[in-house]
């Protein structure tokens, strides 16, 4: 479903070359719920930006639904983001002064779809927020905002849902609810990729890809939550070791 091969991305920071991604290959199958984990500076944000088509790798290929999108033009990438990728951000990133429903409609308008309102209502229903559709983000709680953001990500029925620290701005109880929602969505067939630094969040996923210094690595041994997963990871994803 998602196949990225030998991704390389470097930045020059203060005269020093930083290898944000150093020959990283990832495969995510349809229907999986996978975590990308790593400490800050490990390159997980860069990987997420490339997988989310916000950025292009320097070398390497990225196949999304069988198409190599690593060489797409900016406009083509915008279309890929619009139709095949749904983003969920740590700080929700909803547009203020627009109702929940209008926020969810937005990607459909960019897609030029005329059934935007109807589809947006369905998506809001999926995340359990039908009764809040006319509230503006400022009138919603953090958990509700994140639900609206998830509905917005879902509404175009994308190939993959990319969540960047989706529980980072929420209290632990609400965070659990959001993770439970992701699990439900995953159970209904959505492919989900969660980027997090939090082992507890990663533990909710079927497997994790651990990044360290721009390379895929084994999680550190003193990481209690990850420990339990290592064995399973090795079976599911041999190249991750």
């Amino acid at each position, binding site marked *: 479903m998602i196949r990225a091969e030998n991704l390389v991305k470097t930045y020059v920071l203060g005269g020093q070359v930083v290898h944000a991604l150093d020959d990283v290959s990832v495969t995510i199958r349809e229907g999986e719920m996978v975590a990308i984990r790593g400490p800050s500076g490990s390159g997980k944000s860069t990987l997420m*930006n490339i997988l989310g088509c916000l950025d292009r790798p320097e070398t390497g290929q990225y196949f999304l639904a069988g198409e190599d999108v690593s060489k797409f033009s900016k*406009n083509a990438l915008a279309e890929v*983001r619009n139709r095949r990728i749904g983003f969920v951000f740590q700080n929700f*990133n909803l547009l203020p002064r627009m109702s929940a429903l209008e926020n969810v409609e937005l990607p459909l308008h960019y897609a030029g779809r005329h059934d935007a309102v109807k589809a947006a209502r369905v998506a809001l229903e999926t995340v359990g927020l039908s009764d809040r559709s006319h509230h503006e983000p400022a009138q919603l709680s953090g958990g509700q905002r994140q639900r609206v953001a998830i509905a917005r990500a879902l509404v175009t029925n994308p190939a993959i849902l990319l969540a960047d620290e989706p529980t980072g701005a929420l209290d632990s109880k609400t965070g659990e609810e959001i993770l439970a929602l992701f699990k439900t969505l995953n159970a209904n067939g959505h492919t989900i990729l969660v980027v997090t630094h939090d082992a507890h969040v990663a533990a909710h996923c079927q497997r994790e890809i651990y990044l360290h210094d721009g390379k895929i690595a084994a999680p550190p041994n003193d990481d209690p939550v990850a420990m339990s997963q290592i064995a399973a990871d090795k079976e599911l994803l041999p190249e991750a070791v």
Partner: protein
Amino acid sequence: MLFWMIVKVAFKSLMANKLRSILAMLGIIIGVAAVIAMLAIGTGAKQQVLDRISAMGTNLLYIHPSPRGTAGVISGTQLNLSDDDARAILQKIDHVKGLAPVVSRSFQVKYLNQNTLTQVLGTTPTYLSIRDFEVESGRMFSDFEVEHWDRVAVLGPLTASNLFGFSDPVGQVVKINGINFRVVGVLKSKGDQGWFNPDDQVIVPYTVEMHVLMGVTYLREIDVQCEEGSDLDAAQNDIFALMRQRHKIPAGMPDDVVIQNQSQFIEAFSATATTFTILLGTVGGISLLVGGIGIMNIMLVTVTERTREIGIRKAIGAREFDILSQFLIEAMLMSGVGGLTGMGLGIGTAWLVGQVSPFPTIVRVYSIVLALVFSAGVGVFFGFYPATRAAKLDPIEALRYE
């Protein structure tokens, strides 16, 4: 993205910052209002003067001595028009209904302790009908008084009030250049005409002006009124020929008089008035331009402020064109609303000026169209750069922007 969605979003974001949007639009509002009001005043003033000139009749000829000069530099005026010339024209030229010799100079005019420096114009009673003057009180002096060098004067209404205040000048004696004149009448007001106020003058018999006040034998001009419908060009040529003969100008030498007629005046004035109107319009246009810069400024601030929003929109699939059109429409909406408001204000101002001042104002449709098209253009032109900047933002950077 649907057009009306963009407009709705643009409208919402303008409403979210009402004061700022209004301040940004103010430049356009004032600019458009200025263009419309200025053009209305210019057009109205032009129309008024043209009407006045036409009201005097189109059958007038004005004879002046030719200016003397070389290479375009006027170094003096020949003194060659005499009252005998005037009499000859009246007698010998066909279709001449009447004429008025004119001679004038500024003199001090005194009444008791009041005095004023004003134009004292010497002529005959015909002058009033030729120049469309009417007598308000008293009477005009007569041809008899002109022939007998009687020291009588008719005052312009402004001169009369300058010297006499609210009391009646008729029958009183004023001193012009130290010589006593009896006031026989006061003219009706014609209003200031900009370059000359016909209300501020004194009219006396030309014989007195020439021989008693100025001590000259030459006229400044002769105003000739031809019969209605007569051939002015023919009359003009006849007068030229008569003057050449009387002034003994050898063949091949240029004429020593200049003859102007009403249509030349209208033409010359129209050209001046058009220049004047263009000038006014340009001043308004410059304020429109300044208004456009104000809009660009606010749009640049808006783009910076909404960097994050742009990042979000790009992340969920907005193309560069979507972002570009969103901000461009926002700029155009601002200049468009400003333009419409300015149009209302401009028409209102023009109407108000027409009500409270002596200048009539005429709002022409072309000036409204011009101002609106210009303001929409300003919106596109000055909105384009900020919108392009927004469209070119890197989505990752934009999403990270706090």
